[in-house]
């Protein structure tokens, strides 16, 4: 008997490596040997594959079947190799065409009845197959629409191992089975949160629009009931639609995390709000065998909202410093490093003190000064340093409610239009540079020949810098914000008023 050979994909983070599956049948007592660093779920494939083959009416020979997964040193995990293993063994047994399986990449988990179950991470796996130059990929029917999102590769969806064998030239008569599908996704509730539900707090709404326009990280400080959470939840609605690459990345992460993807790429930015008891592994990703993406990776190209930020443990928050800096989340394990995209927009909300009332106009704080100090001290300096907007939100007064009842309020649609216009103005200005958003522009450009502002405009912050009121880094952040404010205003360069507005957006903690 010959060797059966086919291919599958092993995912590490979003990167997929092609794995060659070889099957050999030797004249020995019946056994199924699987070699090449399988994890437990993959090691159990040998029992699934033999039962599935028998129960779908194409039993494997009663001989010793040896399956080798190469490269042998690459750790492999999960049940997605089942289909490839079964077909390689059938190829070795001469039951199907070995040339045919050699050309196709196979993904899918087998049930004991021989039907194929959908697997997680099909989108990044099929993408990797297309990049590796495969022309055809065979997937379970339940993953067909997700696999079909990848351009430039032919997707063959099969419901059972028998169907797969017939496609590869096996002499079996078709036996239609009920395909196994994923539980229908709970209808994705379109973000129905509109900005015009926010009453009063026009300044805070404007701060939110600035954050959206420049992709600035934001920190909202204020007493309970001031509307911090309400504001943050409306930020994704202000962001423009994702471009093709970003939406593919967002959908890939969803697929890897086991979330429903459906038949179309999601073009809206994701929103993640982990609870404050989250661990570092839950936030940035982790896991001992398979490395899974955390909330920060799922929020890539969207918004990561940390409500009650000081309640998070300090080490968890500081785990965000690396992705904030580099836009990539790297998770190191003894045998591998997984990289996930981490270009999210961070929004944090916090009370000013444990009782929450410090600084509120209508009630008084009962905290001792030391606990107040310690409360916000939990947010480390290096983390706050990376956050451009630090805004203090006040409770809405009854006068404010009455005043805003008739006043026109900004709607999400109108705000998004302004954001899109401001972003395209920034992109047009920054054309020819590696950046396209104001928050990514380094200080050297802001103070260099292209971005330098006249001394008269920057006089206020120059003076503050001289007096030691702000640091050089704070100076750059104010300049960045000022550019975004100017872009929203439609003016070509920031004026002194824009600098003043930028200063106002950063005064939460100092006041």
């Amino acid at each position, binding site marked *: 008997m010959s060797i059966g050979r086919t291919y599958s994909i092993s995912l590490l983070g979003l990167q997929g490596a092609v794995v060659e599956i070889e099957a050999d049948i030797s*004249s*020995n*007592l*019946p056994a199924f040997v699987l070699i090449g660093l399988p994890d437990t779920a993959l090691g159990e494939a040998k029992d699934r594959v033999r039962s599935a083959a028998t129960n779908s009416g194409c039993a494997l020979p*009663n001989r010793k079947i040896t399956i080798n997964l190469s490269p042998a040193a690459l750790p492999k995990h999960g049940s997605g190799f089942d289909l490839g293993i079964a077909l390689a063994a059938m190829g070795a047994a001469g039951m199907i065409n070995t040339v045919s399986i050699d050309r196709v990449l196979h993904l899918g988990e087998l049930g004991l009845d021989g039907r194929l179950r959908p697997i997680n991470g099909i989108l990044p796996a099929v993408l990797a197959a297309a990049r590796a130059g495969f022309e055809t990929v065979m997937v379970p029917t339940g993953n067909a629409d997700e696999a079909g999102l990848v351009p430039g590769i032919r997707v063959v969806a099969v419901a059972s191992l028998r169907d797969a064998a017939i496609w590869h030239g096996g002499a079996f008569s078709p036996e239609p089975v009920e395909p196994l599908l994923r539980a229908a996704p709970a209808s994705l509730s379109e973000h129905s949160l509109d900005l015009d539900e926010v009453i009063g707090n026009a300044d805070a709404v404007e701060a939110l629009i600035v954050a959206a326009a420049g992709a600035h990280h934001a920190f909202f400080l204020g007493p309970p009931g001031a509307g911090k959470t309400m504001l943050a939840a409306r930020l994704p609605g202000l962001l423009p639609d994702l471009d093709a690459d970003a939406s593919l990345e967002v959908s890939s992460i969803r697929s890897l995390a086991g979330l429903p993807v459906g038949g179309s790429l999601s073009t809206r930015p994701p929103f993640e709000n982990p609870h404050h008891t989250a661990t570092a592994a839950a936030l940035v990703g982790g896991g001992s065998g398979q490395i899974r993406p955390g909330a920060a990776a799922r929020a890539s190209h969207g918004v990561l909202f940390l409500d009650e930020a000081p309640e998070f443990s300090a080490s968890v928050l500081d785990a965000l410093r690396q992705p904030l800096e580099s836009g990539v989340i790297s998770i190191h394990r003894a045998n591998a490093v997984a990289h996930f995209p981490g270009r999210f927009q961070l929004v944090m909300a916090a009370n000013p003190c444990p009782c929450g009332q410090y600084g509120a106009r209508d009630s008084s704080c009962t905290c001792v000064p030391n606990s107040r100090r310690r409360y916000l001290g939990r947010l480390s300096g290096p983390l706050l340093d990376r956050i451009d907007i630090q805004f203090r939100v006040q409770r809405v007064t009854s006068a404010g409610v009455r005043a805003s009842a008739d006043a026109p309020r900004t709607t999400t649609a109108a705000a998004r239009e302004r954001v899109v216009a401001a972003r395209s103005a920034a992109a047009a200005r920054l054309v020819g540079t590696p950046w396209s958003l104001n928050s990514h522009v380094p200080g050297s450009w802001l103070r260099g020949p292209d971005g330098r502002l006249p001394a008269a405009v920057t006089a206020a912050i120059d003076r503050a810098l001289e007096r030691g009121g702000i640091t050089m880094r704070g100076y750059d952040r104010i300049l960045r914000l000022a550019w975004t404010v100017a872009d929203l205003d439609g003016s070509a360069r920031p004026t002194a008023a824009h600098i003043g507005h930028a200063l106002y957006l950063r005064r939460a903690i100092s006041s």
Partner: protein
Amino acid sequence: MATKDDLGRRGEAIAAAFLTAAGMTVIERNWRCPQGEIDIVAADAGEMVFVEVKTRSSLAFGHPLEAITAAKLARLRRLAAAWCEAHPANHDQIRIDAIAVISPAHGEAEVEHLVRVY
């Protein structure tokens, strides 16, 4: 005597006939010692062959070869050593084979022979 023992004996007879037809010399059948029993001892071109025979009347409870477990093979290996000790001669090459006999109550028996299984 139980039917299963009859079946086993019939299977061993079929296996012995099969080995003879294949040009091997059957030296001993059902050799017993305190550790157990060897179904067939045969000689094949200078090699001593110890054969485990497993017989079933149908595949309803699985293939006979599936019933030859690692523990059974390990015992056969010990038995082979015991046989060599009991029959001092120059046994410089030995091997262990397995034979599956599927012998339905009515009809032709089917024999599968696996060489050097251990």
